[in-house]
């Protein structure tokens, strides 16, 4: 029995919805096998990582606050990736958004007023945009690949945190710890469900996803992103300049990463600490692809990836799985997804074995 890939006449819609689910399932199966082989309780690991966060209501709030930044950043990335603009440096833009928000929080330290938080959010968005503008400028003016520049700038942004919290922004009462002082009340993100840690960022993430979905499907902006990504030559013919699209894609994805950053620093952290960069910006790349570069899909994918984060922590304590296990599961998911994508444009067909060439 032989199988052969055959090109479909139309890309399969069914497959484009089915492969993300298949990728998650395959990850669970293969994850169980791999961790069993290296001596852990594989099935237990999969259960703890993928099911416990869902079945245990105490974990739901963790899911929400982990999913929020992933959804916000993933939404921005899904827009940029649609246009084939490969912003890999969302982590850096997230950090810069967080730092810009921190700057405002420290400047307004001790002040009260409803305007502090919106000002921080605005600064965060602008900070992320400004940091994404560097790769956009280099790409459009000097044709420097944005993958490299945006990625490398991530490491620069982390160093900037270390510098700021060790010298100018260091908490004067912090007993030498490298961190800023705790933000004043006006600069902290309120929780929306009393008694939990679920902050305002969670509903904001859902709203961002929904608005982005509407814009991408209905507006000329969304059309521009899709047509530039699908056929750059046709986009030019249709009147969409490539450089303007690169700028828009970088600014939108950078701005949303910055938004996630400021919400994160004003919400769960409430101060800038060395541990602020938590790889949300990189994980959001998986979120964007698992969500099929569709903002609605990104909301779901953000929750799935949040499950692996929360579940990974659970598995660490319950069955002693190393922290890196989470990363392995996430990477497997991306690989299965990318591999499964071939089924969207191709179908697998069984062919009967054929007799070999009868060269007469």
């Amino acid at each position, binding site marked *: 029995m032989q199988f052969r890939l055959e090109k*479909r*006449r139309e*890309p399969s819609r069914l497959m484009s919805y089915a492969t993300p689910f298949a990728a998650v399932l395959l990850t669970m199966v293969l994850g169980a096998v791999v961790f069993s082989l290296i001596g852990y309780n594989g099935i237990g690991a999969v259960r703890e990582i993928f099911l416990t966060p869902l079945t245990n209501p105490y974990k739901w709030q963790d899911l929400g606050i982990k999913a929020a930044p992933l959804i916000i950043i993933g939404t921005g990335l899904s827009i940029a990736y649609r246009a084939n603009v490969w912003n890999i440096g969302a982590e850096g833009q997230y950090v810069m958004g967080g730092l810009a928000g921190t700057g405002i929080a420290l400047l307004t330290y001790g002040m009260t007023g409803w305007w502090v938080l919106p000002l921080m959010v605005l600064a965060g968005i602008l900070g992320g945009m400004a940091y994404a503008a560097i790769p956009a400028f280099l790409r459009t003016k000097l044709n420097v690949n944005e993958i490299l520049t945006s990625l490398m700038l991530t490491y620069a942004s982390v160093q900037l945190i270390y510098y700021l919290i060790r010298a100018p922004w260091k908490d004067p009462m912090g007993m030498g710890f490298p961190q800023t002082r705790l933000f004043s009340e006006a600069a902290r993100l309120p929780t929306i469900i009393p008694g939990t840690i679920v902050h305002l960022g969670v509903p904001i993430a859902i709203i961002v996803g929904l608005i982005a979905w509407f814009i991408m499907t209905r507006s000329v902006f969304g059309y521009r992103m899709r047509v530039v990504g699908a056929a750059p030559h*046709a986009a030019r013919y*249709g*009147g969409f300049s490539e450089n303007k699209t690169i700028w828009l894609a970088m600014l939108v994805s950078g701005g949303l990463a910055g938004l996630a950053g400021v919400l994160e620093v004003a919400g769960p952290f409430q101060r800038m600490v060395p541990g602020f960069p938590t790889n949300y910006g990189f994980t959001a790349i998986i979120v964007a692809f698992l969500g099929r570069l569709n903002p609605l899909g990104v909301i779901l994918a953000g929750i799935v990836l949040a499950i692996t984060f929360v579940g990974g922590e659970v598995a660490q304590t319950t069955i002693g799985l190393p922290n890196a296990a989470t990363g392995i599961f996430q990477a497997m998911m991306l690989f299965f997804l990318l591999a499964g994508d071939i089924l969207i444009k191709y179908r697998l067909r069984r062919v009967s074995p*054929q007799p070999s060439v*009868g*060269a*007469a």
Partner: protein
Amino acid sequence: MPNRLELTGITKQFPGVLANDHVSFAVKPGEIHALLGENGAGKSTLVKMIYGIMQPDAGEIRWNDEPVMVANPKAARKLGIGMVFQHFSLFEALTVLENIALGMDAKIPSRELESRIRGVMETYGLALDPHRTVATLSVGERQRIEIVRALLLNPQLLIMDEPTSVLTPQEVDQLFTVLRKLAAEGCSILYISHKLHEIKALCDTATILRAGKLVDTCDPRQETSRSMAEKMIGTGLKDIVKAAGRTFGPPKLVVNRLSTGKTGHFDVPVDNVSFTVRAGEILGIAGVAGNGQNALLDALSGELIGDDSEAITIDGLGIGLLNTTERRRQGLCAVPEERNGHAAVGDFTLSDNSVLTARDRLGMVMMGLINSGAAKTYTGRVIADFAVKALGPASTAGSLSGGNLQKYIMGRETLQKPSVLVVSQPTWGVDAGAAAAIHQALVDLSMAGSAIVVISQDLDELRALCDTLAVINMGRLSEARPVKEFNVEEIGLLMGGVHGATEGTDAIPA
């Protein structure tokens, strides 16, 4: 003598379409056999099965009276079947010799290969320097590389897929001489083309396919071009209806000393081109592919923007600095040569493709939002008016055959009623029935008062369609003259770069 190639009951099923339905015909040794049919009639599929790119679902292929199973192109070449594709597979940065060496199944020392190449060239009068870089060669010369590559294997059957679509009339004559010589030596030739007069001039037998079925096998010399075209499309053929004694209005599109910079490594830029198209006039621009046609289209459509506002004017208004969107608002629409990926997005629905160029002219955008209902309605009208074979506005552009996609694109632009329409290769690879419909649409648009520029390599098309004609060569345009004043010989010479004394584009250095 046994038949060289005999097909019996060849059938090939694709999802949703029967590409070949019990096709049977035979090619004799030394015969030049034409394979005719509309786009999507199944010619390519049939040829791909002979050359081993795909396998038939049913039926038998006999080669020199032996049943064979051609597993892949390598096996086909081993049998003695050579093929020259419509689209060449050559590396532009490599030499002729290197390109040929890369395509050989067996490893042959370069010196021996060179002497064999020179031998083949001498035998068939194919002049070509093996050490020239492909990028410096004309399309006709590039085709010779492909032919030499096929002939090095001493084929008993040579398959040629639309070989003349890119050649000047003189190059076509040279090609026919080579093919006749090959046939005289006993090599059979399977010749696929849309150009019926060429088939009449060259071929001994013609097999006509329609919708995957064999319609007729006839002697093209006993048929007229019209009778063959009617067999291909299955109905009577319509002539272009053009009102006699038309008069033209005032100048509409005036191009004055238009030049473009060099964009790509191997692109030919437009060099100081001037012409005028009046309201109601169709100007044809003839020329061999790769002589600046793409740059000219891009410069007119606004994809390339120059630095002189007055280089292009519509009704006296300078549009040289406007981008494509603004030019469309001024009434200039354009259709580039490449359909998939340039004029249309293959992965998008037809409805979304209508948004690409019609969104502003037809009010499909309100406050930054797309009115998808309007796009759908308009697309439905294009599909109906231009008889596009598609399931509906929600079909993706990539699922349409080349000819149908072209009909859709031409419909999308002409139904916007542009005051100036610039089209490149409007009927390239389109069957006779669809071509007639597209030609009629262009004529109707011109009669409604639009100025039309048709860039094409098909001289028959230009002579039938246009009122005035100019020839582009190396980015420079000859003077436009009424099409009746030209004879084919003269156009051919201009296409080859021999300019007459009346040449109007010689510029005073600025």
